[in-house]
Structures are given as structure tokens and as C-alpha cells.
């Protein structure tokens, strides 16, 4: 098993391994090791519960495995992965909510009603809106926000990875934060 930590060269190494069918599986293994923890917490901020997070994390990696052929390396690998994970979360929540609603239709004992009205869904609203807001950001702002907000990376490290000046990154992050705050506040019920 490969132990990996993320650094600017890791994505290049993963991408290179994925280009060759001989090393494809090794590349995918390195991708899992590199991003599993980061993605777990990303998903967990939305779904909260470990079992749900574990299920969606597995689904995300399966989707990544199936979709790697379409990844052309034009966006940061993590940005591409992040979008898949977020979409998987939204699909999971939709499915779960639909199941709860069906259960509510079928039973009168009130248990399902307790579930649907619990904070499981209501408490996630701000977090869901935050992820929706991130999806609306331009590519560069999205990348900077994810690295700074979730990964708490110093500007210099982001600069090395994205090839953008520190001043430019600060401006991008500032704009991204303001846009997201505005989006979440405006859309919260």
C-alpha cells in the first residue's frame, strides 16, 4: 500500500501513472491515498454522519475510477475530484430525502416524521449552500478557496501549486469569501 501526502508534484505523478495502462492501477491507488482523508472531511462537512460519509466516499472514488478517462488535466485534479464528491453528496441527500418522504407516506407512527423534521437535513442547510456557492465560483477562485478554507494552506504553497502570485491569490480568496457569504445568506430560509 502506498503512503502518500499531497504536494505539488503528486498530481503530476498520479496523472503520469494514469496515462499508462500498465501503471493505471498504481496511479489510482496513489490517488486514493493522497485524497481519501481530504475528501472524507469534505464529504463529512455535508453529511455529518460517518456511515453516510463512508458510503459517499466510496461512491466518489468509484465514479473517479470510471471517469478518469475523461479527465484531461486542464483543471487541478483536486478541483475535478471535489466536484464529483459534491455531486455525489447532493445525489445521496436527494435519494435519502426521497426515501424518508416515501416512508412518511407509508407509516403513521411518526418515526419517519421525526427523521425528516430532525436537524439531519435542516442543520445541513448552511453547509449545503456553502458547497453550492463554491460551485458557482470561477475556476481560479474555487481552487484558491478550497485550498485556503478547507486545507488551510499558506498562500506561498498555493502559489507554488497554481503558479499565481501571492497578491493575486489574496484577491481571489477575498472575492470568493465575499461571494460565498452573500450566496449563503441570500439563500438561507
Amino acid at each position, binding site marked *: 500500500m502506498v503512503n502518500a501526502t499531497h504536494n505539488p508534484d503528486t498530481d503530476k505523478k498520479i496523472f503520469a501513472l494514469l496515462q499508462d495502462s500498465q501503471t493505471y492501477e498504481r496511479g489510482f491507488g496513489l490517488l*486514493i491515498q493522497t485524497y481519501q482523508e481530504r475528501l472524507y472531511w469534505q464529504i463529512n462537512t455535508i453529511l455529518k454522519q460517518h456511515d453516510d460519509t463512508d458510503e459517499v466516499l466510496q461512491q466518489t472514488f468509484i465514479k473517479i475510477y470510471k471517469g478518469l478517462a475523461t479527465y484531461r488535466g486542464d483543471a487541478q485534479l483536486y478541483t475535478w475530484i471535489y466536484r464529483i464528491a459534491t455531486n455525489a453528496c447532493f445525489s445521496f441527500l436527494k435519494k435519502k430525502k426521497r426515501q424518508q418522504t416515501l416512508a412518511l407516506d407509508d407509516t403513521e407512527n411518526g418515526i419517519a416524521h421525526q427523521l425528516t423534521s430532525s436537524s439531519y437535513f435542516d442543520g445541513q442547510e448552511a453547509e449545503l449552500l456553502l458547497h453550492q456557492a463554491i460551485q458557482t465560483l470561477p475556476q481560479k477562485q474555487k481552487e484558491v478557496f478550497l485550498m485556503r478554507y478547507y486545507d488551510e494552506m*499558506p498562500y506561498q504553497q498555493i502559489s507554488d501549486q497554481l503558479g499565481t502570485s501571492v497578491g493575486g491569490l489574496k484577491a481571489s480568496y477575498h472575492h470568493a469569501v*465575499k461571494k460565498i457569504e452573500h450566496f449563503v445568506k441570500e439563500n438561507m430560509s
Partner: protein
Amino acid sequence: MKDKENIKKELESLSPFLSQLKSDTSENKSVPKHYFANFEDRLRNRMEQESALQPTAPIPTKKNWSSWLARFWQPQYAMAFSVVLLLLAFWQWMPQQNDATTVVASHQSLLADISIEETTDYILENIQDFEMTDIATLLEEDELLTIPTPTSTSTLDQALQQIEGGDQLLDELTEEDIEALEFF
């Protein structure tokens, strides 16, 4: 550690709302022991199981005409055929309509330059080419009276007309006189 503090302070200054949201979601985070160490193995097992459950491609069966035709007994094919037939019918009908209207229009434009007098003269000169019933349907009653009726006179009648008092001469002719005429 210092970097993380700076990042937190930066977010607080930029957006206290997002800073609060982040600190709320960061509380009580923990995962089961060895979760990440075992994750890849569990994932690979699941992928193998799912790929094993994937339906294999159906084995092609021997084709026959009835099975080939049977696939057209579906609503989408019926709809598609109906649309194609309608389009063909429309395409067939439209040019004919256009041709008919074009011919009538061209005839009307040609006749528009000819006066009634010219038309009448033409008809009278070529009256033998027209059926009387056709002419009668086209003309008004008073116009019909103005058209001279063609007369058919025999050679004998024409000869008698040229002779002064021909009618009287004809009355006086007896059967013997007629028999005596050479050309009878």
C-alpha cells in the same frame, strides 16, 4: 500552527459568518480506528464485487424476420413512421398545389392584356374550334344574340339566290322538269 492561526484570523476579518460556520462544522471530528488504512482495500473489494455483478453483454441470437419486424411494434417507431408519412404526403401535395396555382396565375396575367373586343374577334374567327355549349356557358344572354349564327346553304340554294326570282321559278318546276335536268 502559526499559519493556521493566521488563516483563521483572516477568515474572521473577511467573514465572521463563514468563520463561525467553519468552527461549528469542525467540532467533534473523529473517524473509526484504522479507517483510512483499510479504506483502499474495502473500496477495491467493493469495486470487484460490483464489476462481477455487472450484466454481461447478451449473446446474439439467430435473427429471423419475425423478431426483426417485432421491434417495430413499438410506439416510438409507430410515431416516427406516422411523421414520415405525413411529411411525404405534404411534400407530394404542396408542389401540385403550387403548379396549379402557377399555371392559373400565368394564364390570368396573359389574358389581362387582351381586350374583350379582341377576344370576341378571335372567337368569331375561330368559332369552328369551339363547342357551342362552351361558348354559351361563358357568354351573357345578350352577348349570345350578337354572335351571328352560321348558315349552311346547299349549292342549289346558293344558285337560286343568285337568280332573280329564283323562289318563283322553283315553285313552278314540275317533277318532269326536274327529271329532265341533266345533273340529276
